[in-house]
Every structure is written in C-alpha cells, then in structure tokens.
C-alpha cells in the first residue's frame, strides 16, 4: 500500500518537473504567489511553500534560552537521565560567539538550519534523513539505524542520538533510543497551520513563514533588512536566517 503511494509521488514529482518549466512561464507570477500559504491538515505538502525562520538575535534575551526551553517543553527532550553531556539531546542550543579582532560578543540559538541541499540527507545510508517538499529536513525514525553519519555531516552540530530508552514521550513528537533527532520545525504544528513552539515563545524575535511567498512577513523582513546564513560559504541555502550576527 505504502510502496505504491510512494511510487505515485515520484511519478507526480517527475511529471511536475517536466511540465513545471512550461507552466512557470505561462502562468502569471501573481497567481503562483497566491497559492502559497498554510494548508489544511488533510492536504498534502508541496514545494510551493518553503518554510523558513528569521531570527533576530538582538531581540532574544539570554541568547534565546527562552526558545530553547519552549522547544524542550514542546518535544520533551533534555531530561535524559542516563546520558552524559555529550550524549544529551540538543535540538536547539545557545552558542556564544566572540570576534577576536573587535571583541564583539553575542549569543545565538542554533538548531537544524533546514538546508536546501542538506548534507545529512546526502550521506544517510538508509534514506531516513530527508528533506520534505516544503523544505523541512526530518529524520524518518522508522528507518533510521542510528549510524550517526548525518551527525558527522551536519556543519551545525544540530543533531543528536537518543542514547537511552525513553518513556512517556509526547504524542505529537515520537522519539526513541537508537535514532537520530533534530529540530523538526514543529511539523506537527505547521501541518495544521500553527506556528512552531519557539516562534510562539520568542515575542516576535523569530519570524516564521514561507520563503517562496514574496509577500509573506518573513520575505518582506528579509528584503528590507537582510538576513545572514551561518556558514554561508558552504552554499547550503538554509531555511533558517539570522539578523544581528
């Protein structure tokens, strides 16, 4: 059952790819833009959207410790009793940066940057690491074998492996021993039209939205004030951008 639906998805994607070049020219650009936006829970995701986040570091107190706590609460990570500090889950962490020359210091929250060309998905031997059509990079824990290649490939140290058996996980955020995990951009929320937990906790310092929609708040903010990628030199075209770094 599932196999055939996957094949159908591949066929559809291929056909859309072939037809896409033709339609993009013929359809007025305004029409395409209006299609972008939140979807109904029963609706399939599509590459019309590319979800992204813009983080204004200057407006986040304590380097974003508040959003880290909100993420912990939402997904239930961080209480691994038998793991040491190197093993503990870190879906998002605050990083302190000091530039040697100018001595300018700041903190920023770092999580999965949801790269367009995600190195984790590239190296995954089972296909468990993948990028959804709407740009969210995820781990399919059903087929993750816990090899941790993705953790080594990720330039942002965004991923962690669960080292111990877990109980009482959140119903919306399954996590378990022997699988790799990272920020999911709260897909369980955005699939039903809600904002990610960190965005809700950020008092407006993090803007979530559709990077493909030129009229969205995030695109307008990026256009007006710009936004940096961490390690932009890698050319990964990240979905998470920063201001004030």
């Amino acid at each position, binding site marked *: 059952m*599932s196999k055939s639906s996957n094949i159908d998805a591949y066929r559809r994607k291929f056909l859309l790819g072939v037809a896409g070049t033709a339609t993009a020219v013929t359809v007025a650009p305004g029409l395409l833009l209006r299609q972008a936006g939140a*979807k109904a829970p029963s609706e399939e995701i599509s590459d019309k959207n590319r979800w992204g986040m813009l983080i204004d570091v200057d407006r986040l107190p304590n380097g974003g410790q508040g959003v880290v706590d909100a993420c912990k609460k939402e997904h239930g990570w961080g209480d691994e009793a038998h793991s040491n500090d190197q093993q503990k889950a870190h879906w998002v962490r605050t990083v302190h940066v000091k530039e040697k020359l100018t001595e300018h210091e700041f903190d920023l929250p770092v999580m999965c940057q949801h790269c367009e060309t995600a190195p984790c998905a590239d190296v995954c031997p089972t296909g468990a690491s993948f990028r959804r059509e709407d740009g969210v990079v995820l781990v399919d824990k059903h087929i993750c074998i816990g090899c941790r290649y993705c953790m080594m490939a990720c330039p942002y140290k965004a991923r962690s492996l669960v080292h111990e*058996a*877990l109980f*009482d996980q959140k119903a919306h955020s399954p996590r*378990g021993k022997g699988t790799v995990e990272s920020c999911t951009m709260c897909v*369980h929320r955005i699939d039903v039209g809600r904002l990610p937990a960190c965005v809700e906790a950020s008092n407006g310092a993090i803007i979530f939205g559709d990077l493909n929609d030129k009229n969205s708040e995030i695109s307008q903010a990026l256009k007006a004030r710009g936004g940096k990628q961490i390690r932009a030199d890698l050319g990964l075209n990240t979905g998470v951008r920063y201001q004030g770094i």
Partner: protein
Amino acid sequence: MFGKVHNIFVTIALLGLTTLLLTGCGDTPPEPRLETAKAKAEQCVEPTDVMRKDHMEFILHERDETMYEGIRSSKHSFKGCINCHIPAADAQGKPVNYLTADHDLNPEHFCATCHAYVGVKLNCFDCHSDNPEGAAPADSTHANVNGNGGVAHE
C-alpha cells in the same frame, strides 16, 4: 522386516506428536479489551474483521503519508488508535502503559492483550506514546526504568 518395525515406531511417534499439538489448541485467544473504545464509538474506523486482519496496513500507510506528505487527518492515525482504545488511567489513577514496570507486557493495555498471545513484539512504543494525550501524569517508577531490563536510576 526391520524397516517395517521402524515404520511402526515412526507412525506411533507422529500420532503422539499430533495429539500433543492438538491438546495445545485448547486455549482460546484472549478477548481484546474493547470497553474503553466502545464507550466512545459504536464502530471502529473500519469493520471489525478488517481491523483484526489489516490494522497494521492502515497504520503503516498512514505513517508514510504523515511522514513524507504531511497529511495529518485523523482517520487511520496511530494517535487516533491510542486515544480511543487506551483508557486515560486505570482504577488506581495510573496511566495504562504497554509494558509493566517489570518489562512484561501489560494485559490491561489494548495492544498488549493480543500481541502477548501471538508473541509478536511491538516496537511502536519505543518511540510513540502508549497513552492517550492528556492522560494521567507519568508513573515515576516507570519513567526510571531503562530499556535494558533493570532499574538503573532512582
């Protein structure tokens, strides 16, 4: 002649074995605990015979659709199964977990009833919640048990 005697022994041994196997069939399968779900709905998402045979197919199908296509409608969702079939708390007000504190299958848990009988191990609950959302608070004895079978931490 020697072969004939040998054959008789083989026949007797086979008869004995068949009798043994047949006596083992006396056990009737356990009745799944349906009272929790029946209190919420008259009928499951599919007819009972279909659910008995194909419930895994539905869960697997929904799993891939949700994971890759972001479809979160509730009809065949795993969360839906748990929310409907597992009681929020047992008579003592504790959550009904798939495993007991001793790592045995908990016969009170809807999934465990049949899966213990047929000896098919489930690893759904290694990651997924085995309780309905918003159920009784976590049982502290259970939360401190690690997966290797021993209580490793208090």
